[in-house]
């Protein structure tokens, strides 16, 4: 089966977030970039497992400039067969989704996987938008995925429990924790990744629907008020009278 995994670039989870140009742009100085964890740990690894069981090919796609290529090589080192970079800055979720959908409509995939969200924009939008543009079934937040012929069985978290559902392929599914376990690339994978195909395709003039105007940081917390462990009643009183939290 042919699987496409959408890969986004994200700052390492330990990054301190700062902004530049009068708070209009993310300050990338000293920031280590990684494959967005949900895309890598769950979507990509589950795609590789499905390929190992059923045969086929795993392609990764990113919408971004040339500075995306190091993280795309990382995804190839983990085991993807080939990579496609749509040569355009990522403007917003819709533009990224439209570019990915355009690529899919010119190529054939049984299954498209994304992470449930990126850790930099937290939008949970691209997968659903790709599915809507292509008019194929979509399921978000899947914690388990199995494929049997042209049917996929999925477990997903929702309010109050877990839903088990079935849908027909081709489909788009967003992956959450539980779907697979992180794989660390080995030396052979890293060497092989250097010669795997990474194709750059031009963007297809899709426009963005939104635009980020500025960024801000949360206000700093004041000094912590320490309470003696022998006087926990005081803590409960403060939470009630001062913080009004209980």
């Amino acid at each position, binding site marked *: 089966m042919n699987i496409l995994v959408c890969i986004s670039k994200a*700052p390492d989870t330990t990054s301190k977030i700062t902004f530049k140009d009068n708070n209009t742009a993310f300050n990338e100085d000293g920031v280590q970039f990684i494959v967005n964890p949900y895309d890598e740990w769950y979507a990509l690894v589950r795609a590789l497992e499905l390929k190992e069981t059923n045969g086929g090919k795993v392609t990764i796609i990113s919408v971004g400039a040339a500075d995306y290529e190091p993280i795309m090589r990382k995804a190839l080192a983990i085991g993807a067969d080939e990579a496609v970079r749509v040569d355009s800055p990522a403007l917003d979720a819709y533009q990224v989704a439209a570019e990915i959908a355009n690529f899919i409509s010119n190529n054939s995939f049984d299954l498209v996987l994304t992470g449930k969200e990126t850790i930099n924009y937290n939008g949970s939008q691209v997968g659903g938008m790709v599915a809507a543009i292509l008019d194929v079934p979509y399921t978000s937040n899947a914690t388990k995925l199995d494929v049997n012929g042209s049917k996929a069985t999925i477990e997903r978290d929702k309010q109050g429990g877990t839903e088990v559902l079935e849908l027909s392929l081709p489909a788009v599914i967003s992956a959450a924790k539980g779907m697979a376990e992180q794989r660390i690339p080995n030396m052979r994978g890293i060497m092989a990744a250097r010669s795997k195909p990474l194709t750059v395709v031009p963007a297809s003039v899709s426009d963005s629907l939104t635009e980020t105007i500025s960024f801000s940081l949360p206000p700093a917390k004041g000094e912590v008020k320490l309470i003696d462990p022998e006087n926990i009643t005081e803590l409960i009183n403060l939470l009630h009278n001062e913080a009004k939290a*209980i």
Partner: protein
Amino acid sequence: MNVLVFAENDNGKVAKASFEAATYGAKVAATSGGAASIITHGSLDQEGLNELASYGITNILHCSAVTEVDPSQLTKLTIAAAEQTGAELIVFSHDYTGKSIAPLVSAKMKAGMVAGAIDYPEVGADFTVKTNVFSGKAFAQVKIKTDKKIITLIPNAISKVKSEASANVSAFSPDLGAPSVTIKEFKAEGGEGINLTEAELVVSAGRGLKGPENWGMIEELAKELGAATACSRPVSDIGWRPHHEHVGQTGIAIRPNLYIAVGISGAIQHLAGVNGSKVIVVINTDKEAPFFKAADYGVVGDAFDVVPKMIEAVKAFKAGQA
């Protein structure tokens, strides 16, 4: 502008976050000279519908036929309701269902979407909304460029406000086509069932608890407070607690009124998921734990000593209130 709010059916009840979304939609409509409507679905108790009608909403469209959360049908339902009500803005809650449906509606309508809003929009020459980015480490002000707009609102970001007026409830049954997925089974979670993303009070614990067998006191404290339980990533990774309790950068982000962290050091990835909480209490044996810098109240002490004392103190407090 006319606003449509998607109100979610949470196993036969109106989801709590939907009342906040209704408040949000009604206020945006009122300040811009429009009307707010609600689209909801499935079998709902009358009490929930009546309450939903009391947040400054003009009309409630209720499609009782859609009982299951099928993304394709709910998308069609929302778009039909938006057409019916002339909505220029559609508001969802940024929860499991809202996150699943809103992007589909956005792409089908080519309506610009802001996910995870934490405040009311600023409406002037531009329409901009403040949203959570970098997993709670920062905010962005995002402009929606299209005439039709979509916002998903983070639970607990705004307070719900009732109004005097009451909405009309009418049946609504547009053609929704066949479902795109077949729901085979729903496995309900055990326990008290307070939904973590919507919870106002959360008690969370980490590796400092030393083993899954020690969570009894965390659950008891949560039960006494009427709080949901949560955990740090290492604890869910080693299987002491279920995945859906993991809060932090790669788990879920929450913003309760009160977050009590027991035996969690407060790594930057964990803080990202909880620093929207209004009040943070940290209990840790290590007075150098980074979490104390992000806390409002701290207790330097052993969880096995402090938590049982808290349970007793909460019981005494409740007895005093009664």
